[in-house]
Every structure is written in C-alpha cells, then in structure tokens.
C-alpha cells in the first residue's frame, strides 16, 4: 500500500472533529514520509520504502481506532474523575450517617431514648396520631412514650440503613476502581480535577453540617432539657465534625503533596 492510499484509508476510518482529524493526518503523513525516507536511505526502492513505512505504522483500522477522538477526552476525564470522587464522598457520607445512628443508640443507652427522640415540651398529638404510635409501640406507657419509641426508630433505624447503603456504595466504588485499573495500564498521576477535590467537597459538606448541628443541638439541650431529643442533632453533629476532620486531613495531605 502506498502512503497516499494508507492516509486515504486512515482518513475514512478516523472519527472526531475536522480540525483534530486534519492534524492527526498531517502528523501521520509526516511520520510516514520520514519513515519512507529512512528506508530509502537504507537502500529500498521508492515503492518498497513506502510499503515498509506503512507496514511499520500499523493496520489502519487499529491505528484509526486508537487515534480517533470520540467526544471530548477532557470532558470524559473530568466527568470520570468527578463521579469517582463524588461517589467516594457520598459513600463516606452515608457511612457517617450510619455511625451517627450508632452514636445515637449509645447515647440512648446512656441517657435514655427521650434524649435522642423525645419531643420538645408542649408538643401534643391528636388521638388518631397517638393511636398510631401505640400501635407501633404497644408496650409503651402513654402516648409520649410511644411517640419516643416511634421517633427513635426513625432516628436510629433509618440512619443505620443509610450506613449499610454507604458500605454498599463504598464496596461498589472499590470494585469499579479496581476493575478500571485492571482494564487500563497504569498511567502517571495527571488529574483533570485539582488534587483534593473530593476531600474539599467532603470537608465543606460535613464542616457545614457540624457547624449547624452542634450549636443547634447544644442550644436545644440547654433550652428544652435532656429529654427533648437533642441527642439526635448532637450525635449527627459529633460524627459530622469527626468526618470533617478526616476530610480536612486528606485535603491537607493532598495540598502539601502537591506543593512538594
């Protein structure tokens, strides 16, 4: 095959924007002409030199497949890294919610369930609502106690469910990252997103959660007393603060590594 015929076939098979394809073809042509010239210098005739250059370059189908720019690789890399980082943050966040459920459970063991799920003073339920709570907690003494038992399941049970979901998300993330690493050869660590992107998002979210939940929980404890459910916010705030600290350390390490 001559260089011209090879470039025609390559052009037919290349996909992507015109300006990109044009530059790829120009680069391929420069390479092929240089290679053919080198073969001629080694004594090959013109036709044989072109054929050797084309053969060395590789099958047009294979080369075109690897050289084709489908969509914007930058966008794909950006999306891939953003999704990978955010799924990891989401998984850690959900596990933190689960841990706050466990902390609420421990707080309820220490201070009683009303500390976690008690209603504020003055809250009154209708007879129908009380009947629902009693149906949910038939052994509870009175409407208020039944309401506490009902709310406790909402605070602790739902959080634990989210924690289990978080573990599944982290497992899925780990499997996906490992599978991708196995499919692709290892590459140098050049990132489209800045270092510490996920840690920044996580630190911002959990820092905000801690800053809101802890003072509000403490205020609720001071104003309404121990048995009015302040433990729900306080357990969330404490775990949010710890998670924030973890993300902040990760961010600090990413930044210091980046700066050398």
């Amino acid at each position, binding site marked *: 095959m001559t260089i011209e015929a090879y470039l025609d076939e390559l052009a037919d098979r290349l996909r992507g924007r015109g300006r990109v394809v044009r530059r*790829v073809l120009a680069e391929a042509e420069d*390479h092929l002409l240089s290679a053919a010239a080198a073969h001629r210098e080694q004594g090959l005739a013109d036709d044989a030199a072109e054929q050797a250059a084309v053969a060395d370059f590789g099958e047009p189908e294979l080369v075109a497949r*690897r*050289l084709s720019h489908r969509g914007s690789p930058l966008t794909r890399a950006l999306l891939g890294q953003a999704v990978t980082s955010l799924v990891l943050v989401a998984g850690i966040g959900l596990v933190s919610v689960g841990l706050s459920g466990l902390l609420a459970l421990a707080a309820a063991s220490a201070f009683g369930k009303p500390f976690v799920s008690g209603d504020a003073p003055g809250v009154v339920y209708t007879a129908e609502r009380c009947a629902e709570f009693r149906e949910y907690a038939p052994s509870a003494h009175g409407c208020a106690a039944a309401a506490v038992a009902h709310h406790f399941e909402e605070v602790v049970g739902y959080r634990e469910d989210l924690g289990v979901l978080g573990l599944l998300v982290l497992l899925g993330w780990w499997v996906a990252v490992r599978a991708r690493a196995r499919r692709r*050869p290892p590459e140098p660590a*050049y990132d489209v997103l800045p270092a510490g992107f996920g840690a920044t998002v996580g630190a911002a979210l959990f820092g905000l959660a801690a800053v809101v939940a802890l003072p509000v929980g403490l205020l609720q404890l001071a104003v309404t007393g121990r048995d009015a459910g302040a433990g729900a916010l306080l357990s969330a705030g404490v775990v949010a603060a710890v998670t924030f600290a973890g993300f902040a350390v990760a961010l600090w390490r990413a930044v210091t590594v980046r700066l050398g």
Partner: protein
Amino acid sequence: MAGADDRERLKGHLDLLLLSVLARGPAHGYAVIAALRSTSEGTFDLPEGTVYPALHRLERGGLLSGHWDRATDAPPAARGAGRRRKVYALTSSGEAALAAERTHWRRFRRGVGAVVQAEGRA
C-alpha cells in the same frame, strides 16, 4: 517488531518511556519512536501509529506540549520536505510526573528483581 507479550508488558510503561525519551529534548513523533526503538535495541518496536495516541494523551494531560513546526531535517530524498511537523516537549508537570514515574519504576524493578533472584536461588 515486539512480540505480543512484550507489547502487553510495555503498555504499563509506555508513558514513562515516552517521557524519558523527551526528557533529552523536544522531538517529533517519528524521532521519539526511532529513539525508543534504537535505545531499547529493538525491544520496543511497536506498530508506530499506536504510539501517537499515547503522545496525544500525555499532551492532553499537560505533561507534554506540542507545537507545529516545519520539517527542516528531513532527508533531501524525502517527499514533502519542509512540510508541517508536530514537535513535542516535556512540560514542568511532565518533568514532575517523570520523576515520580522513575521512582515507581525503581521500586517496582527492585521488588521484581528481589523476588526473581530469590526464586532463582531456591
């Protein structure tokens, strides 16, 4: 030309090899591939067209910069002498990545060497 096994082994190290070649100075694709082939004494003799996607990827990643020049060093017999030619150069990010990759490579080579030699002695 490199065998299929060599090509598979090479995949994980192609970026390091390309960055190492370009650490010696800016070069166009053909010169990079020729240097890769000659320095490795023919071990890394890949289908040449498949090296360009790696160069493009490194360029997109900011490790290489590429600019178009005129081919002035083409042999007189070369058809199209003076044609446009893309020249690649290592960026500062590329230099940092190369240093990191070299460190990884030395650690990897030491580990493999230690295991292989231990197996040989066993």
